[in-house]
């Protein structure tokens, strides 16, 4: 609109905002056209959207190679499942608890980063954290039921809506995803989001601007942990049984792949990444045995030719798609 630099793009950022609001509204039609299988994939996409959005805060915005994301995911799922199974806690409340416990796990993970451990060293330590958590699920038999997995109760309600098939799950998941994506977007386009990105760009300089870097590193991890924790609580209901196998190293790699394929540090990219890497494996079902090969090749190609992720294709359409760390 009031662009001074002679921006002649087709789409203004104002129009784009309406487009973003339209996406979830348009998605409301999906349950009327999709069967349970397709709807399950859509629901999985909604879960993975939050997983990726949360992970991207650490990887993309904060720029830290911390791989504790799958641990947050599992912790969220188990928190919710355990509370529902043993405590009779309503699902809605258990989601909140997953967010809190996930946030605490995020805090724990941030301590390593605060000790000044960075890059690959941080990556390896956070991987170890995730694998140790998996060992706990496997050996915490009395509570987690070991590798049998914890079956969540049949009669689950979200604010009175019974989550007994994919359709109600879709609406609830969509609501949660929209709310958390919006909240994360608010956060990233504020002074807090700028501080987090500034730390990625140059930690020393950031402090010189009066920004308490340690506080924002912790905040990024805690927020990431909470968002992914909620995703975990959704995953528990999606799969109806929480199993240790679902939170292994393969899952770490898939989450990482989603962030990079979509685009680091971009919320739109996170959504694209979640959609791409949830649907492609389903598409590849027709070529059995070639999953890993395709997965590897796709990511290699994206890294080589679209280093900023698929979202960068949108930037070619209009620079308005580039996410800013402030809002007009």
């Amino acid at each position: 609109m009031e662009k001074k630099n002679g921006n002649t793009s087709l789409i203004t950022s104002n129009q784009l905002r309406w487009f973003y609001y339209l996406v979830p509204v348009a998605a409301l039609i999906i349950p009327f056209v999709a069967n349970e299988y397709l709807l399950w994939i859509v629901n999985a996409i909604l879960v993975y959207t939050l997983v990726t959005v949360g992970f991207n805060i650490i990887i993309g915005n904060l720029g830290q190679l911390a791989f504790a994301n799958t641990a947050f995911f599992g912790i969220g799922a188990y928190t919710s499942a355990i509370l529902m199974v043993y405590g009779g806690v309503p699902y809605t409340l258990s989601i909140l608890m997953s967010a809190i416990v996930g946030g605490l796990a995020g805090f724990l993970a941030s301590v390593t980063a605060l000790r000044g451990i960075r890059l690959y060293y941080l990556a390896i330590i956070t991987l170890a954290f995730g694998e140790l958590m998996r060992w706990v699920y496997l050996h915490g038999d009395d509570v987690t039921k070991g590798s049998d997995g914890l079956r969540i109760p049949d009669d689950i309600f979200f604010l009175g809506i019974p989550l007994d098939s994919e359709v109600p799950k879709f609406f609830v998941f969509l609501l949660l995803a929209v709310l958390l994506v919006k909240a994360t977007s608010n956060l990233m386009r504020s002074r807090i989001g700028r501080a987090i990105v500034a730390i990625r760009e140059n930690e020393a300089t950031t402090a010189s601007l009066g920004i308490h870097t340690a506080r924002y590193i912790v905040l990024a991890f805690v927020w990431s942990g909470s968002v992914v924790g909620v995703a975990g609580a959704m995953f528990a209901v999606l799969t109806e049984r929480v199993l240790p196998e679902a939170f292994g190293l393969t899952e770490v790699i898939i989450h990482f792949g989603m962030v990079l394929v979509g685009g680091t540090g971009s919320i739109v990219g996170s959504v694209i990444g979640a959609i791409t890497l949830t649907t492609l494996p389903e598409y590849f079902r027709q070529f059995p045995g070639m999953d890993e090969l395709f997965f590897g090749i796709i990511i290699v190609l994206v890294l080589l030719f679209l280093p900023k992720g698929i979202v960068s294709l949108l930037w070619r359409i209009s620079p308005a798609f580039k996410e800013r760390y402030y809002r007009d």
Partner: protein
Amino acid sequence: MEPLLKVQGLSVNFSGLKALSDVTFDSFAGEVRAVIGPNGAGKTTLFNAISGYVPSTAGQIFFKGEPLHGLAPHDISVKGVRRTFQTGGLFPEMSALENVLAGLHVQIESGFFGIVLGLAEAREAEREGILRAKRLLDLMDLGAAAEQPVKDLSGGQQRMVEIVRTLATEPPLLLLDEPVVGLSPPMRDRMMDIIRRLAGEEGIGIMLIEHVIDLVMSGSDTIVVLSSGELIAEGTPEEVRQNREVLEAYLGHA
């Protein structure tokens, strides 16, 4: 006049090596104070010590009478001592506007919940910050470049953005580490002009590290000369020019 910054007997050791030893001087509001000296004299270490990036081994630093030594960099910055860096001080992937907004961080008063929930107050605070940042960029003729990532800007523009970012909160004391390095001569003169104006008109205390002696002599009120970590001379450009020790220090290391 009460000094803005008091440095008393400041020493910094790096694993036994003396980077600074027993440096003492005062700095005042509205004054441009240059820090010069041969390579390795400890100029940047002095800035790092004042701004909290390296711990001091001995000595004290006071800003407006309050001790700064032992504080973390961000606390010192909040108190009103701001600095720039020799190289790579900007956030290259962020736009000029975002860089300046990051500089305004502590002045934008929006709380966590207000931000997350998108409350009106938080948005208002952000909006004010954005207006302010845009105004500042316009003042420096950077309005057109506001939306571009700073890595795409020219060297001169980048320097300007950094100065704008550092000045955004109107700090009483500014530490500039080689602010004109890499700039073309006309840009250099313009930059020195801005610096002089900031000190003269806004009453900001400025300390700067500079190698180009002409600029130092013409642009500063007071000069501090460091050599091998020691303060060997302090005074007006004229006084320093005539100091024999200074000449020796430069020739000895040349």
